[in-house]
């Protein structure tokens, strides 16, 4: 499986003036980039900077509008993923494309040429995964695997093609710190074999830790090419964002008030075979507090949000309390009327309907809580467009939502701007309880810091805020208290100042140490 060494100074892959236009919008604008054999090359940039578009062109998913791609000294046209694979380019996408009901080996077989027997694939995959320190049982069903293990399948699948260049898109966004460390070891092994890695990330520490060179993108253009180890995180951030990012200030968070949101031994069985069931979750959020729930994706965060928001009410009334009133069986609008606000993880098709205008998306969340202001005509329930539009405008101004036109469809906004609107939609009501799932997932740095500051400010003004997040940086920026969710169980709640990343990492892996005491301590 080893690749023969290339002359160290001639690039493995060089990209010249690569441009991709969508209509008149240049997602990539004259990109120059070269990757040497045996290096780990970072591609840095905010969301929407053009990183994904660039790698999709390298992997043959998108066709470039103009520019050239030179592979080992020869100009090539990569017009399909199979061409890319034949050249020796492998790719691990950020969102996995795996069938949960199939086994690891079956999933791998799907991307191979037909005619290779399943047992041979299983053997090769198993050998390869152990050789690179990525242990994997080829006969396990994907549904039973953790996200980290699923990523290994994708990596092994790419490695089976014996690539010279492996592209990894945001690989650590779904991993615990310990899992990420293991991934880095694997990457160093690949590098030692003379393979190159294109590593896409917006996490600066990681890039500084493992990457030899970095190319920074902003608005589709290269804004910097550097050795990340010689830069500081703030100088890299400046290249990415174009200006200094506002620092979130959690200073002066007020003292604990009354309990505004409480879960008492909340359990809920999984609704689908691939969902996670919630097991005996106890939590309390006081006024003035930001409780952050950390955890690796797919450990029950979505299910916890569904239960707390009332999108899927639970069987008993008294396991969830908002402002001391039992609401477990009540629907989402009943909870909104008690002063709660909700921001789900998925923007499109959950928090907002992409095809509908911003004002319609305001009605979506507030048709009942703002019934008096937004509806008229008694039983007819006429929507008062003027009042709704005014409120939407007020929210857009308060949160600095940048949009084209007065009232554009939600789908036309960038992720960050839509998320600012969705968060602003709830803040505008001054909720006494706010429950947010992944508040800044896929959001650019500027918008993220704005949203985080807004959450902190809301808590300061005396509301209880619950933030479910996978992003540890975010958690340390906003949280006053931290708990960790793993396989549907919640750890004890710790003051934020008492926890380190390592401790959280251990908790994420489900190592509570004192699970027994956790349950008794929270019994009421």
């Amino acid at each position: 499986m080893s690749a023969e060494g290339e002359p160290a100074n001639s690039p493995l892959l060089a990209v010249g003036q690569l441009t991709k236009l969508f209509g008149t919008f240049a997602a990539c604008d004259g990109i120059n980039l070269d990757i040497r054999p045996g290096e780990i090359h970072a591609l840095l940039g905010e969301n929407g900077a053009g990183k994904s578009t660039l790698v999709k062109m390298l992997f043959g998913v998108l066709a470039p509008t103009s520019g050239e791609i030179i592979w080992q000294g020869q100009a090539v046209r990569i017009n399909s993923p199979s061409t890319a694979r034949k050249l020796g380019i492998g790719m691990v996408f950020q969102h996995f494309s795996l069938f949960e009901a199939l086994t690891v080996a079956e999933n791998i077989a799907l991307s191979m040429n037909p005619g290779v027997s399943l047992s041979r694939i299983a053997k090769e995959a198993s050998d390869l995964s152990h050789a690179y320190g990525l242990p994997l049982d080829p006969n396990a069903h994907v549904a039973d695997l953790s996200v980290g293990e699923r990523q290994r399948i994708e990596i092994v699948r790419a490695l089976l093609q014996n690539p010279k260049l492996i592209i990894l898109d945001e690989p650590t966004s779904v991993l615990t710190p310990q899992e990420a460390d293991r991934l880095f070891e694997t990457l160093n092994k690949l590098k030692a074999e003379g393979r190159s890695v294109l590593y896409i990330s917006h996490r600066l520490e990681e890039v500084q830790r493992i990457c030899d060179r970095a190319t920074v993108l902003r608005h589709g253009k290269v804004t910097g090419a550097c050795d990340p180890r010689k830069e500081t995180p703030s100088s890299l951030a400046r290249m990415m964002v174009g200006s200094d990012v506002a620092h979130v200030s959690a200073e002066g968070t007020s003292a604990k008030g009354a309990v505004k949101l409480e879960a008492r031994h909340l359990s809920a069985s999984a609704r689908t075979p691939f969902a996670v069931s919630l097991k005996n979750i106890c939590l309390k959020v006081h006024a003035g507090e930001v409780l952050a729930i950390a955890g690796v994706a797919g450990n029950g965060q979505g299910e916890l949000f569904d239960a707390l928001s009332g999108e899927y009410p639970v069987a008993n009334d008294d396991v969830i309390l908002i402002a001391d009133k039992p609401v477990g069986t009540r629907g989402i609008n009943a909870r909104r009327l008690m002063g709660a606000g909700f921001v789900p993880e998925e923007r499109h098709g959950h928090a907002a309907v992409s095809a509908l205008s911003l004002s319609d998306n305001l009605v979506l969340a507030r048709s009942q809580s703002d019934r008096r202001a937004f509806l008229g005509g008694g039983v007819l329930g006429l929507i008062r467009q003027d009042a709704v539009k005014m409120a939407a405008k007020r929210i857009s101004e308060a949160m600095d939502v940048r949009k084209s036109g007065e009232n554009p469809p939600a789908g036309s906004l960038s992720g960050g701007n839509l998320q600012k609107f969705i968060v602003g939609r709830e803040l505008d009501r001054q909720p006494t309880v706010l429950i947010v799932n992944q508040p800044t997932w896929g959001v650019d740095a500027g918008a993220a810091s704005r949203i985080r500051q807004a959450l902190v400010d809301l808590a300061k003004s005396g509301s209880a805020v619950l933030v479910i997040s996978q992003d540890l940086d975010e958690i340390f920026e906003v949280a006053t208290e931290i708990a960790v969710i793993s396989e549907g169980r919640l750890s004890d709640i710790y003051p934020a100042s008492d926890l380190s990343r390592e401790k959280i990492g251990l908790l994420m892996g489900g190592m509570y140490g004192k699970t027994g005491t956790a349950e008794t301590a929270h019994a009421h």
Partner: protein
Amino acid sequence: MRIELERRPDVSKLFSILSPFIALGLTLVFGGIMFMLLGKDPLSALYSFFIEPLTEVWSLHELAIKAAPLILIAVGLSVCYRSNNWNIGAEGQFIMGAIAGSILPVVFYEWQSPLVLPLMMLLGMMGGALFAAIPAFLKAHLNTNEILTSLMLVYVAQLFLDWLVRGAWRNPGGMNFPETRTFDATAILPEMIASGRAHWGFGFAILAAILIWFMMRYTLKGFEITVLGQSERAGRFAGFSSRKMIWFSMLLSGALAGLAGIAEVSGAIQQLRPVISPGYGFTAIIVAFLGRLNPLGIVVAGLVLALTYLGGEAVQVSLQISDKPIRVFQGLLLFFVLSCDTLIHYKIRMMWFDLTDTTADGVR
């Protein structure tokens, strides 16, 4: 080789508006080719198909008679389709509405009162709604596919009607013809204007279109329908119940189809026969889409499709060909409407490489 539909980055406003007209134009072209292949002069065939019926008062009345059930049914279906409930069984709901509404003039024919007609209309709506309640129940509680259940129930309704008019409800003085007794004058839907046959069914259709248009455009209910149709999850976030929406949309469209059924029987046929519909319930699906699922667009589309029925009859007489060209025409029209709409949102991309090597490899 693989053919892919790729979403266009932006949708042309101009072509969105032109699309139904382009579809209509393509239908005319291919319809003309079809007549040519049948050995007829395409221009005169298209003239007697599409223009001639519009030149006389009596045929305009016929147009209104045929458009009424199409519009009534399609308006109800538009609510279903917008909320992502695929009621394909309006034909059956139309028949069951006609049967339920005919209980009074057929079974209780001796009762003559001004109340009969309004009661018939109400019974018709209930009959259609109850028949639509079957697929609604199956979908809401057993998660069955409403396309299949509603479609299969059409045949149940057709055979039930057949059985009734040959058996229990056959006219005792009708010389064994499979028909019910003709309705009493108090059970017949009156004409709208004195100049011809068109009955109040057309009025109901226009009224229904306006009411549903108002609901969709201005009320929270209309908003709920749109949201649930776009994304069930977002609807749940808004506190809307997709299960209740199944009931609402199916019962509403069933009631409107039932009303269309009893209005047709009471106004145009004036008795029950083994066959009371030339496929209105299915043609209304085309009407609903041709009208862009917009009730006002549906009024126009209903008139266009009604014209294909009339024109079809006209060419049967003038060109001596069978009634199949009408079906072909309607099929062509639906095909072109859907493909024009698709090509506005997507463009076709040919992928010239080997299929076997590209499965499940992150190409999302």
